[in-house]
């Protein structure tokens, strides 16, 4: 029986290996040493790192000794910032939409952002449509790249080493791609997708970090073809309590190499991942509809795959009444697993001892229902009694979880923009018939009938006209289209 298992496993290994190898390596993963193997591989970037497609928009060039932030300050929507090799010690923050920050790779040399363990973050963005690619980012304290509510992002082909808590951390983002990055030496998750939707995490190498790739309180995430090795924990799908978005649903872990994640857990005490046992392959904590398919999961000393709930996850959380603490509908399709769980610790060690297992590929501990597995006999398992046979055998119909089109800006009519600005700003000092601080709106309408341009001109550069009223502060902070919208709206107000 054991021999049969081995044989089956070997056949599976070959079959899957052929399939995946086509996509990434063509070599055994162990021989991969650095990022260069995929430098010419993917769409949109030529081998010297020049972007192949630059649409309209200006190009700003930043050379060694200059400031990337200064270029960001000048750039407008649609512009590209080309950063040439050199060392840049700064925090680049991008609070604008559709900016592409593009490292130019010359003779294999990338532009380097070096935080010297003094600076907090290398990149912080809040805009939509941000692309950050081809950088080497080292020695920051907080994050390599952090996004806050930016949609439609691309983070690609970056080498991120020792950048503090997270390497790549988009938060509250929808529709994003994290691809072809190499990360190591991160105190928490190397790639951390937090409270996001529709994200692909593809073909990255993450190693020697506390956690490799963590999908937390996010929906519709495809994590595939990543090389995840020598972390304390490899792949995580988590619901963490106490966050405003409370579900983690529809995550596919597919075609990843999850190897030897036995690194010492060097997380900051008190952090969520500090409780992950070293030797974790894939951990599903309370997340729903997670599919685990076509992965090589080998040599993870605590377990290959564990599915558990918040109570049994080993972490101490305050209760969050707004969420479901149990994982449901996990599907473990075919995977190649070997030599996992040979030296477990903590609760897993106790459980395997009781069950008299000297290995553990897959364990299910705690509550949650409706899980399934294909060919459970191939693996050393614990607690899978309630698992059904999966009906589906593959997720190959899912090519991507990114959206076919970028998330559009919210569709707000000119009229509505005017109304918002009127009630949000003007109404603090002007009412229709009464005098609060400034003249009444009815009064203003008499003066500027059919002349919204006149209002725009006045609010941009107010002149103190009437001695019985205080001077109006200029509204230069408003974009031109909003000024016009509010002027038009103000002329239409009837009460």
């Amino acid at each position, binding site marked *: 029986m054991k021999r049969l298992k081995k044989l089956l496993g070997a056949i599976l290994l070959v079959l899957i290996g052929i399939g995946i190898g086509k996509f990434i390596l063509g070599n055994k993963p162990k021989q991969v040493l650095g990022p260069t193997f995929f430098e010419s591989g993917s769409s949109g970037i030529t081998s010297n790192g020049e972007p192949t497609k630059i649409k309209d928009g200006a190009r700003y060039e930043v050379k060694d000794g200059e400031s990337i932030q200064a270029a960001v300050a000048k750039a407008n929507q649609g512009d590209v910032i080309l950063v040439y090799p050199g060392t840049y010690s700064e*925090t680049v*923050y991008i*609070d*604008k939409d559709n900016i592409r920050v593009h490292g130019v790779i010359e003779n294999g040399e990338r532009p380097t952002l070096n935080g010297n363990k003094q600076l*907090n*973050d290398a990149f*912080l963005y*809040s*805009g*939509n449509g941000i692309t950050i690619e081809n950088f080497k980012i080292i020695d920051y*304290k*907080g*994050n390599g790249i*952090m*996004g*806050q*509510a*930016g*949609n439609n992002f691309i983070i690609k082909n970056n080498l991120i080493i020792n950048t*503090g*808590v997270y390497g790549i*951390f988009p*938060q*509250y*983002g*929808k529709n994003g791609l994290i691809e072809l990055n190499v990360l190591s030496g991160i105190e928490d998750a190397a790639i951390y997708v937090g*409270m*996001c*939707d529709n994200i692909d995490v593809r073909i990255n190498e993450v190693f020697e970090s506390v956690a490799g790739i963590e999908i937390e309180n996010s929906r519709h995430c495809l994590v595939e073809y990543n090389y995840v090795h020598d972390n304390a924990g490899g792949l995580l799908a988590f619901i963490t309590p*106490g*966050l*405003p*978005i409370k579900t983690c649903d529809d995550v596919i872990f597919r075609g990843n190499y999850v190897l030897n994640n036995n690194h010492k857990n060097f997380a900051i*005490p*008190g*952090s*969520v991942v500090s409780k992950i046992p070293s030797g974790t392959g894939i951990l599903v904590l309370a997340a729903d509809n997670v599919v685990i398919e076509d992965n090589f999961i080998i040599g993870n000393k605590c377990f290959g795959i564990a599915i558990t709930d918040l109570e049994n996850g080993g972490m*101490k*959380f*305050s*209760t*969050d009444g707004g969420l479901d603490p149990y994982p449901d509908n996990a599907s473990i399709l075919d995977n190649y697993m070997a030599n996992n769980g040979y030296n477990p610790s903590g609760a897993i060690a106790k459980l395997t001892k009781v069950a008299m297992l000297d290995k553990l590929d897959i364990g299910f501990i705690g509550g949650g229902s409706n899980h399934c597995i294909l060919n459970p006999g191939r693996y050393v398992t614990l607690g899978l009694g309630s698992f059904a046979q999966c009906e589906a055998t593959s997720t190959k119909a899912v090519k991507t979880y990114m959206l076919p089109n970028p*998330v559009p*800006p*919210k569709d*707000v009519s000119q009229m*509505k*923009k005017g109304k*918002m*600005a009127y009630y*949000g*700003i003007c*109404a*603090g*000092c002007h009412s229709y018939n009464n005098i609060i601080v400034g003249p009444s709106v009815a009064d203003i309408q008499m003066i500027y009938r059919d002349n919204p341009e006149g209002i725009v001109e006045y609010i941009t550069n107010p002149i103190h006209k009437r001695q019985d009223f205080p001077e109006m502060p200029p509204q*230069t*902070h*408003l*974009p031109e289209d*909003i000024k016009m919208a509010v002027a038009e709206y103000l002329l239409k107000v009837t009460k």
Partner: protein
Amino acid sequence: MYQMYNSSNDKGVGGLQTGLPQNRDGFSPQQIDLGRYLFFDPVLSIDGSISCASCHQPDKGFSDGLAISKGVKGKPVHRSAPSIWNSAFIDKFFWDAKSNTLEDQMQGPLYSENEMGNNPTNLLQTLNKLENYQALFLEAFPEKEDEEISLNEIYTALTAFECSLISLNSPYDQYAHGYHDALNEQEIEGMNIFRSFVARCAECHTPPLFTNQQLAVIGTPEPKGRPFDKGAEVPTGDKTLRGSFKVPSLRNIALTAPYEHSGVFDNLYDATEFYTKGRGHAVPDSIDLIVHWHIWEPQLSVYEIERIVDFLHTLTDESFKPQIPQAVPSGLNLEI
């Protein structure tokens, strides 16, 4: 203006250009104005000595400048009075989050012995005797069938007024909407420290409201001589919530010293510095708390703390601060 933006999963939390959470709306100007009179009128308290505005003073960010507020006859209240700016967007009230609506919340201070000390029967009798209020309630609720003022009408009017207190046009907001000259260099530096994953302020004090509206255990010390406050463990009975409090909004925070549920820090520098002194450093050994994972040791420098404080000052906007009435309908002395 934030209605121009998307909001991830409609939760109203995110980054600079993120939509707001759902808000209470649809009150008539008459209801708002009646609410304003009620808010400032000491007739709502049992002995006519204090009004809502005694602890929620417009000039102090709708707080009162005290560590522990004072109720009727100077009785000490349990905790510090929170600001009520932007209540329209908030779904948890009281420091321990025991209430989910303004209508429910206000019954706390109205009827608490240590606060306004009133009771529903007395409140109705008092208001129904006042002709001014009868007229105002008729205007605010023109469809009412009964001439008597009802409790629900009182609650609705006060809610209407509170929901008119919107503060979303600060220098920070102008920056967020794209006018980057609204903040100076030091303030921007502070903003970047605030949202970095070293300081992690924005993880719980998340824009646009600068709160994620969750409970969190941060382990602030109690002022000398005051017992440990169990926070949300009290209303929930859940020990894992021991010492947890609602994450407060930081809007107009520069106006509302002292800080924390107990008012233990009297300035923003000290309140910010707390977060860099180490996880659980102020928690007595005898008390077992599940301190929030974002509380760690970011090792912020004095310079960085000062910049965060600079940034916090850019969250001040009082353009919709209401006028304090010249006189209140009850004819009582208006004392704030």
